[in-house]
């Protein structure tokens, strides 16, 4: 045991001499290569003396209560101390060798070096005087506490070198960082720095400057490392920063070194485009051209960070109670988003507006950032109240009664957007607000601000976007068509009423099927009485507008009601209507909607119906069949119509057969009338209408059966 002790003590002494020598003369010698390797073992070795030292502290703290064999314990304790000292010396020596290989920053290194060497000396002295010290408990424990403290300090400074400052508490400190926003930070801070922070800072910082390069501060980053500047502005391919990333992974100079987290494609692109655009540290995202690669890539990075743009407000939020109280059906007050102190207020329903409602907002005058008074009867007088909301950024006064005195608004130093559209303000009035320091947008469409001032004002206030009338189309356009109020089947002696949705329109009409024109056709002044089934065409005209499309409709006048009506053939099951009732219910169908009870549809068989007028048979002059035309839906006029007349169904004979002219091309859908003149006083009529058996060759359904749709039949 004693022999071992002596050998070890001598060994430690030798090491101490070496340490002292290297510490003093280290920068004057060059280490042989194999010693450099030994130096690099320092990070491995250092854990042994730390562990042993802690073991030693535990051993000496064991109370002497016969848990262990006291003598053995003493021997072990001493042996542990001996080993600790030996390994500490060895570690210190290797550490110094490593430090001679360079690349480390000054402050932390010096602290680490000195403290470690002192520690190894101290341990050596401790062993030499171990027996003497053991007798004097106070001093013994005092020395131990000192050694422990020194060990802690040396270990800590060492870890700062490898992991960077605040490695342990970083996760806790990170959250407190100020959030960046597009407005207040440069592209460098926003996207470039985070890449460097993640992938480079751990080796290139103030305390550990590998290759002499410090990236954590802009000034030293600009200076570059041992090889000089890290980039050539605008030339990423010739920049060292990019080159080292692209070296093969096994290459010595490849960055980040093999085993560390590598850069992603996106991160490389960010660095590349940043250098390409001039490696500017101050430029803002918005200052880059919209098609600039850096801007595009920067805006696509990390949406949550870049697009939510949480504005920072310095004022405190109003209490929820206050905000809730301010909400009424006609006034909404709510935060811009969750947990935001900023409020927006909207007013609705002009008829319910009260100035007091605006005044009450004073309770949140600090928090109010957006205010919408659009269409409220707010006058210049009320602007004094508005001016109290000193943090207002967006103000909507569209279609209010404000007029000339906008001076109160000058107090709104943060106002960014002001809408005055539809008010009576003039160029003079807006001069006051144009001087607001933060104003970015001003809307003066449809106001007294004359368009003639547009160029002048826009030139004077280049940073304000002033929006005038943007719809500059003076081409006259077509009016909408007139409308008919009592469309369909008129009562006897009822006249047709026309109308138009616009004021000051002239309606001209014809009743003979010709197209109305703007000069000669009849002007509509009063309701038009109609003799019977008539095709009415009408158009609207107005100065400065093109004449409308033709409004066209088939107007019917109710006829003589039959006593008895019978449908002799069944309509198609899909278009049953209401049976025979549909034929004389005074409801005209529309040509777009055939699946409706006013229509009866036939395809496979002919339409056949009888009408019995009873004993006092009226004199009938004509029969009107109202039918649908819709070539797109295969709905055609009937091919042939037969009129049978008699006193009853037995003696009815064929009176007339009419071939109906067929459409020769696709046409727009409409309801048309077939007017069959008859002169008759018989009481029984039978009508037969045959659907088209084969659709004409021009039609897409050529050769197939056509449809026949009937909605009303009139006897006049």
């Amino acid at each position: 045991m004693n022999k071992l002790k002596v050998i070890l003590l001598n060994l430690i002494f030798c090491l101490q001499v070496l340490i002292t020598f290297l510490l003093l003369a280290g920068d004057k010698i060059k280490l042989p290569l194999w010693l450099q390797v030994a130096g690099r073992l320092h990070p491995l070795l250092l854990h042994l003396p730390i562990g042993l030292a802690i073991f030693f502290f535990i051993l000496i703290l064991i109370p002497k209560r016969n848990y262990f064999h006291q003598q053995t314990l003493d021997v072990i304790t001493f042996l542990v101390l001996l080993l600790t000292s030996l390994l500490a010396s060895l570690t210190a020596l290797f550490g110094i060798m490593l430090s001679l290989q360079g690349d480390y920053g000054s402050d932390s290194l010096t602290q680490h070096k000195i403290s470690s060497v002192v520690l190894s000396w101290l341990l050596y002295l401790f062993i030499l005087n171990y027996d003497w010290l053991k007798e004097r408990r106070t001093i013994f424990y005092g020395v131990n506490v000192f050694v422990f403290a020194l060990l802690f300090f040396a270990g800590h400074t060492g870890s700062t070198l490898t992991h960077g400052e605040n490695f342990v508490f970083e996760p806790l400190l990170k959250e407190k960082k100020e959030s960046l926003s597009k407005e207040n930070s440069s592209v460098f801070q926003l996207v470039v720095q985070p890449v460097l922070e993640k992938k480079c800072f751990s080796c290139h910082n103030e305390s550990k400057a590998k290759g002499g390069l410090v990236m954590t501060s802009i000034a030293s980053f600009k200076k570059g490392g041992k090889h000089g500047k890290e980039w050539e502005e605008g030339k990423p391919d010739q920049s060292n920063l990019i080159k080292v990333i692209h070296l093969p992974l096994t290459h010595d100079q490849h960055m980040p070194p093999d085993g560390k987290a590598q850069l992603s494609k996106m991160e490389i692109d960010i660095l590349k485009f940043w250098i390409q655009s001039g490696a500017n540290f101050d430029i803002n995202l918005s200052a880059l051209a919209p098609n600039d690669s850096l801007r595009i890539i920067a805006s696509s990075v990390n949406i949550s960070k870049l697009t939510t743009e949480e504005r920072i407000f310095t004022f405190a939020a109003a209490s929820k109670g206050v905000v809730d109280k301010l909400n009424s059906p006609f006034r909404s007050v709510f935060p811009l988003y969750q947990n935001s102190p900023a409020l927006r207020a909207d007013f609705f329903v002009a008829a319910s507006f009260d100035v007091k409602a605006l005044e009450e907002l004073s309770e949140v005058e600090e928090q109010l950032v957006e205010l919408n008074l659009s269409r409220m009867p707010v006058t210049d007088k009320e602007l004094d109240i508005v001016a109290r909301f000193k943090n207002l950024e967006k103000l909507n006064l569209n279609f209010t009664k404000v007029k000339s005195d906008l001076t109160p608004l000058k107090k709104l130093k943060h106002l960014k957007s002001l809408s005055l559209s539809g008010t009576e303000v003039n160029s003079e009035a807006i001069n006051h607000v144009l001087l607001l320091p933060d104003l970015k947008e001003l809307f003066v469409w449809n106001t007294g601000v004359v368009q003639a001032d547009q160029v002048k004002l826009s030139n004077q206030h280049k940073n304000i976007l002033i929006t005038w009338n943007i719809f500059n189309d003076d081409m006259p356009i077509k009016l909408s068509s007139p409308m008919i109020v009592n469309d369909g089947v008129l009562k006897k002696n009822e006249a047709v009423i026309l109308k138009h949705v616009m004021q000051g329109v002239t309606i001209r009409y014809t009743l003979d099927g010709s197209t109305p024109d703007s000069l000669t056709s009849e002007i509509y002044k009063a309701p038009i009485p109609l003799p019977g089934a008539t095709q009415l065409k009408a158009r609207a005209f107005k100065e400065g507008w093109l004449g409308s499309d033709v409004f066209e409709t088939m107007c019917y006048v109710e006829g003589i009601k039959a006593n008895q009506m019978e449908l002799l053939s069944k309509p198609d099951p899909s278009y049953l209507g209401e049976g025979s009732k549909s034929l004389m219910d005074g409801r005209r169908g529309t040509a777009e909607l055939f699946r409706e009870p006013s229509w009866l549809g036939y395809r496979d068989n002919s339409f056949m119906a009888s009408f019995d007028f009873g004993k006092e048979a009226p004199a009938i002059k004509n029969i009107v069949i109202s039918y649908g035309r819709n070539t797109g839906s295969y709905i055609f006029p009937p091919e042939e119509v037969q009129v049978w007349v008699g006193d009853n169904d037995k003696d009815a004979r064929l009176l007339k057969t009419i071939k109906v002219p067929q459409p020769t091309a696709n046409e727009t859908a409409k309801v048309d009338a077939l007017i069959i003149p008859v002169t008759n006083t018989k009481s029984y009529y039978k009508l037969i209408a045959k659907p088209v058996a084969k659709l004409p060759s021009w039609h897409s359904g050529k050769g197939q059966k056509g449809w026949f749709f009937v909605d009303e039949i009139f006897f006049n």
Partner: protein
Amino acid sequence: MKDEFLENRLHVNRRHFLGKLSLGLGSVALGSLLIPDLFTNSDDKVPTLGLPHFAPKAKRIIYLFQNGAPSQLESFDYKPLLTQMAGKDLPESIRNGQRLTGMTSNQTKFPLVGSHFSFKQYGQSGTWVSELFPNMAKIVDDICVIESMHTEAINHDPALTFMQTGAQQGNRPSMGAWLSYGLGSENKNLPAFSVLLSRGRGNGQGVYSKLWTNGFLDSIHQGVQFSSSEERVLYLKDPEGRDREASRKMLDNLAELNNINYKEFGDPEIQTRIQQYEMAYRMQTAVPELADLSHEPDHIIKMYGADCLVPGTYASNCLMARKLSEAGVRFVQLYHQGWDQHGNLVGEMPLQAQDVDRATTALVMDLKQRGLLDETLVIWGGEFGRTNYCQGDLSKDNYGRDHHPRCYSIWMAGGGVKPGVYGETDEFGYNIIKDPVHVNDFHATVLHLMGLNHEQLTFKHLGRRYRLTDVAGKVVSGILA
């Protein structure tokens, strides 16, 4: 036996109590140290309803739904190759196993056909727009055309339902209902989700109320359909001979009765009903102010086109949409029917385009000049695209196109959208080659623009949480300004 139990209890003395207590409290304290938010209310993590989760870009949406699916090849997706290859068969390598609808599945040939209508580039963005939309061409620098939309459905009903609710089967809440649920109503006098219908002159497909359903959400979030007649909201007027005072009294009494019922049964729909009566009462003042178009000045009528005064037209719905949106309606949904050009595309599409072109443009411009475009999101588009080949016979001057789910174009304008063209299809206009946008992604993006995280806007129903995007969807950052 009983005594022993009693006795045992008596053995628990203060010392035991304090000992156990300290152990219990200690573990609780340790737990709270290890997991700091262990005892914070877990509801804090679920964003509260009624407010955006983060700063929103848009506050309101106007969705101009082009029902029936307008052809992308005749509107925004310019494919000159199709004109060159007109009549040639669609290469199998391009079709690549795409299923067909029942309408073309027995077609033996798929002759390619290019646009009958010419295209030109417009604006600073150089966006291609067809001659059918001369007015929209004027606002290309305000809109973001997404040429790479794609969907999973191939027929109208499932595709429409998918586009509206995020699922092809019915029963899920519509987008507007989700927004009403997530953000609430800005103007309490009007429904947060309003629906307006119109019908064009082309081949039409119907719309039905399941498209604006509240699904499993509270029925207060259901879309309210405005009528196409002159009276925009039916039965809103007080009956003749009854004044508002009486109505008020009637409603108060009715609410009292309903509340009694609610206490007995606890059915939340009763509360909804009370709220709906109240809103209807307030709508009596709010709606006439809105629906009255007679005071619109001539230059506004000129902008939207003369049809804007004719109730039930697309133009009048656009004007109405602007007014509703201006009055704080969160989601205005328009449906314009008639875009289903299986045949006679050359005849029908110009008519359809005429209906919507001017009024749509006017809406965007009108919002812009009022300073509202940056807080309103306008969306224009249909439920899927149309094939690059002809359905039926290809004649010299007419053709038709079938349904095509693999790519179609829609556009968005306003609130937080980056103008320009997003995504790209191949030269055949059949497959997407760059930046595809799935319907779920579209929904996620729209919610994002409204300040909502699509993964956090959930509703628990039948034992699990549902989202508009259900289990998919990514925010398309490329179209965000």
